[in-house]
């Protein structure tokens, strides 16, 4: 791969976005919504006093909305491979979100561990681009597969499935800093079809390592969503990613190439859907990692998981997951696992989840563990995960 090409591509995309935004500035900005006028309404039966405004301070009008999600995890059992702490405030995710201007919005998700802070995501989204385009610039969870693009707290489990841990660099998964461009591809009826192209600095912990500026990572994701009926819908995705791995040297750039297929099938009758629903999801991954001959040459590793969730009552969900993944740096090593889950939502803003998990690691080590997760959200009301 030539050095200049990827850089030029990124700069081109950025320049395009910038010039478009600037071009917009010369045009009249959107008019504020006029308050509907106004022939006088017929007098109501009892005159209503003007409602008092909601308590607020003018200086706060443009402050971003802030939310914090606490994620506490307790683990029991013995596991010499993944030695999670007994009690851990694993993550306190601070979300700071606001509209930037008529053309863009910004989202920051700062992940506070017990020690240290991590910018999990921080990006601007250009929402007013022509040509059915949506651009994101900054640091973001990469749209590789489905689970990788989701935050830990919206997953249906307290832990990441094995293929994410083994093939995408660890529990954090693939997070990239760069640009993302997504376009709606017209389809008949109301079928949602979206192609996303992304270019990032070739750096993501445990997955990619950028030695020079020209070391970039790429991802392409195509997603289709359609309703089979009012209550049943299908979400399908296919992804291809590539980036330089840590075995690269000054002389030889070695790539890790990733592929994934994901599906989600949901059933939720609209009338009774707050009491009874179900979903089935699965992902299939393949990683091909170039390595020096001393490390066995190119390693091909496969991984998958299949997971189901059933809503028992308004606040209760039961789930199960099976998973398997080879090691990305040694395709001959394979870990497998099974888990059953029970989740209780006291309210929309808190959640208690128990998981009984068995993982069999390569080398014949078996770990039986119980995980108990408590999540709690304060601040601005975020969108419900879908």
């Amino acid at each position, binding site marked *: 791969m030539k050095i200049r090409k990827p850089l030029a591509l990124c700069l081109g995309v950025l320049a395009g976005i910038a010039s478009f935004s600037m071009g917009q500035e010369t045009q009249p900005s*959107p*008019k*504020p*919504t*006029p*308050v*509907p*006028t*106004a*022939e006088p*309404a*017929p007098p*109501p039966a009892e005159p*209503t006093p003007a*409602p*008092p*405004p*909601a*308590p607020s301070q003018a200086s706060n009008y443009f402050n971003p909305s802030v939310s914090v999600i606490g994620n506490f995890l307790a683990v029991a059992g013995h596991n010499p491979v993944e030695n999670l702490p007994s009690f851990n405030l694993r993550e306190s995710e601070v979300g700071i979100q606001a509209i930037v201007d*008529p*053309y863009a*919005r910004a989202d920051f998700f700062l992940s506070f561990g017990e020690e240290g802070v991590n910018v999990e995501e921080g990006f601007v*989204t250009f*929402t*007013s*681009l022509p040509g*059915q*385009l*949506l651009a994101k610039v900054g640091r973001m969870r990469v749209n590789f597969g489905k689970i990788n693009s989701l935050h830990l707290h919206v997953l249906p489990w307290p832990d990441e499935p094995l293929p994410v841990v083994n093939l995408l660099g660890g529990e954090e998964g693939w997070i990239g800093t760069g640009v993302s461009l997504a376009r*709606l591809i017209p*389809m008949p009826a*109301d*079928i*949602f079809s*979206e192609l996303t192209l992304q270019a990032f600095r070739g750096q993501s912990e445990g997955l990619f390592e950028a030695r020079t500026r020209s070391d970039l990572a790429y991802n392409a994701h195509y*997603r289709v*969503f*359609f*309703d089979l009926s*009012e209550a049943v*819908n299908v*979400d399908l995705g296919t992804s291809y990613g590539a980036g330089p791995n840590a075995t690269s040297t000054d002389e030889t750039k070695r790539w890790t190439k990733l592929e994934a297929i994901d599906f989600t099938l*949901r059933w*939720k009758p*609209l*009338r*009774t*859907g*707050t*009491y009874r629903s179900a979903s089935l999801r699965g992902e299939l991954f393949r990683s091909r990692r170039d390595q020096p001959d001393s490390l066995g040459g190119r390693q091909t590793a496969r991984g998958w998981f299949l997971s189901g969730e059933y809503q028992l009552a*308004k*606040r209760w969900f039961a789930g199960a997951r099976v998973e398997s993944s080879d090691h990305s740096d040694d395709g001959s090593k394979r870990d497998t696992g099974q888990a059953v889950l029970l989740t209780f939502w006291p*309210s*929309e*803003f808190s959640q208690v989840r128990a998981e009984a998990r068995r993982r069999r690691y390569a080398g014949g080590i078996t770990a039986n563990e119980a995980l108990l997760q408590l999540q709690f959200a*304060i601040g601005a*009301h975020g*969108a*419900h995960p*879908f």
Partner: protein
Amino acid sequence: MKKFTMALAAIFLAAPLWAKVHVVSSLQDFSSIADSIGGDRVETTALARGYQDPHFVDAKPSFIVKMSRADLLIVAGLELEIGYLPPLIDQSRNDKIHPGSVGYLDASVGCDILQRPTTQITRAMGDVHPYGNPHYWTDPDNGRVIARAIAAKLSELDPAGKSTFEKNLAAFETKLAEKQKEWDAKMAPYAGTKIVTFHDSWPNFAKHFKLVVAGHVEPKPGIPPTPSHTLEIINLIKTEKIPVILVEPYFDLKTPKFIGAQTGAAVVTFYPSVGGIPEIKDYFSLFDYDINAFVSAMKGHK
């Protein structure tokens, strides 16, 4: 050749001479009113169904496709749609329907909104809405305000249709005034009646028809019934001699039926939105159905 020209002419003449205004609304109530005002100059789609809990609508990507084509988005506002609409708007690639843009209409503006908090609120109170109760379209006077706002907005988006919209608005208002006389007359004998509702969806309906909401089956908004609260409600119904429990179609009838069996109060499924059942095909039949259901429950109770 002549035939071909004729056919071509027929196709062009048959097609409407104007492009339709594509209206997407969060609720079927607004699309029903927009249909009444817009007639054949508009094409309406609603995201939530009338029998669905409007607080918990899934942010399905198929909605993004509908919204990407919209000229006008009508929302209830007051954070009723906060759980699903903001990410859909951002992904719609349609800046005409962004909040503050010309194709965005918050139907609550100008309506009589109840329960606006005047003191500090916290989520210890349950899922409270900081801008007031968002179920305001259940007051027909608010329906009139919404219809006027939609007519004004459609005239802005499609100036050529202005006279049509004004004519249709006048017809809507005339019919609403007639219907209101009928509804008010049917409800008049029950003024002052105390009622229990499952969720706090009915303050506007109760205010308009002079009912008194004495309690809710939910202990707090969004929190499912608890045994102790259910006992309190049973006692309340017994002491206050409350004749009916109104339940939105998307809630489980188990607890209300238990309360009904303990107290003799009638359990009535009360539809907050157009489309709740096929009979409720527009904004007028919404009140027709609910009021008839209420009246027959009251008559049966006596």
